[in-house]
């Protein structure tokens, strides 16, 4: 199983402890976002700390950094995060970072991220950041893999589905949706486009394991479950669903 949506929170654990907890829970890999902050200086610091952490085993801990769009170094920071730090891409939470999907710097960041082969995960929570807004950005950068990190949330998941249906490079991360909505998304989305995330701090190993186990209560068939938890995230992260 792969948890596509965890985050650093406070002090990161010892990598060995996390890997042991993942082994115990049957978790193959986690996608970890750097520490959440709206402060520009903390963004780069968080990227560095996260890179050092995931370097222990990049096959099982995948890092997503972030950049401060208001800063002049956003493009350079993007390139550095992926090419030098080895992070898989960036996360963006416009509401918490004090920006919007129309930030003029976002286009340049996306262009750079696409060049570097990175992923962009956006915290899309209606109404602050809508799936339609994120999909509009994704259509401008068709080579960039864009993940709706909250799949629209409880009031926007239908819009997320509609957005993904017409935007090939948009992927849906089911995170925090009620079971009926999660089931509908998994069953209705195009093949290969849905992953799942706990949305929890990566230090909460028990919570992460419980969140992934809850998929079993959604009522989806076993092949969809396998795709959701294993093959789809593998393909999105490493280009292979094997």
């Amino acid at each position, binding site marked *: 199983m792969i948890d596509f949506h965890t985050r650093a929170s406070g002090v990161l654990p010892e990598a060995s402890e996390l890997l042991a907890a993942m082994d115990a829970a049957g978790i193959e890999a986690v996608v970890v976002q750097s520490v959440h902050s709206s402060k520009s200086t903390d963004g780069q610091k968080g990227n560095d700390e996260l890179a050092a952490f995931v370097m222990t085993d990049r096959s099982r801990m995948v890092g997503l950094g972030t950049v401060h769009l208001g800063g002049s170094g956003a493009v350079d920071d993007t390139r550095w995060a992926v090419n030098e730090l080895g992070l898989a891409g960036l996360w963006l939470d416009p509401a918490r970072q004090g920006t919007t999907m129309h930030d003029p710097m976002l286009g340049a960041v996306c262009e750079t991220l696409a060049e570097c082969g990175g992923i962009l995960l956006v915290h899309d929570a209606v109404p602050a950041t*809508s799936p*339609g*807004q994120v*999909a509009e950005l994704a*259509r401008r950068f068709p080579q960039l893999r864009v993940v709706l990190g909250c799949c629209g949330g409880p009031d926007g998941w*239908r819009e997320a*589905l*509609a957005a993904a249906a*017409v935007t090939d490079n948009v992927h849906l991360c089911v995170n925090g949706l009620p079971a009926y909505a999660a089931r509908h998304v998994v069953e209705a989305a195009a093949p290969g486009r849905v992953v799942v995330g706990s949305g929890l701090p990566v230090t909460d190993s028990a919570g992460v394991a419980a969140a992934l186990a809850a998929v079993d209560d959604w009522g989806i068939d076993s092949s969809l479950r396998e795709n959701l938890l294993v093959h789809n995230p593998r393909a999105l992260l490493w280009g292979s669903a094997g």
Partner: protein
Amino acid sequence: MTAMMPKVIDAHVRLGAGREVSLETAALLGAMDELGIEHAVIAPGERCTVLDEPAGNTATTTAAGESAGRLRAWAVANPWRGRDALVELARAAELGAVGLAVDPQLQGFDLHDGLLDPLLELADDRDWPVYVRGGVAAAPLTLALLAARYPDVPFLLGGARHPADVVAAMRHAPNLSADTTSSAVLDAVAADPDLANARLVFTSDSPYRVAGAELARVREWAGDDPSRAGVLGANLDALLPAPTSTPADLT
């Protein structure tokens, strides 16, 4: 010699008593006379939009029929009523309604939950435009995703803010027009002649806004005269069915 004034059509007015504001037909017609607004498309009031659509549609189509052609009517039906909504819209069409108005916020539905789809199919069959009141439940790009699924149905997004979203939505859905109730939207859309020339529509949104101020803003807008004439009336004219004999004309 005075330049010919373009025809002014107000795309959306709500008649009747609302929660905080109200507007009656006589007052509307008086204001239109004063401001030089030739036509207006009227929708039922808030309560009727949600709970008593037949009364609302009867009131607006009656007002339209008695207006000597100055008023035309949007039809309403709460999508939650399912088949009954289609029956009511067909009745409103018989009474002379010329389009469908929906309000996801008031009527309590999600643009992508499928409830509205049968009503949009009816609008498509009848060549009706669809007015959607924008807001939290109908953000521009949310509506654009829906509008793109019905490419033959003209959609008019009312009351939208966030100009960058409106422009992006109009580019995504060529059948989506926007109204003029936001100065920022007016300016942003106007900056793109491809959008402004045919897809901006004047709306007073009375009684929620002050019609004179709304109209003045468009009259003073920096666009060229042909574009302004389009915004003030011609663009909406192109969306509405051609006028036919109304029940009042036949009496």
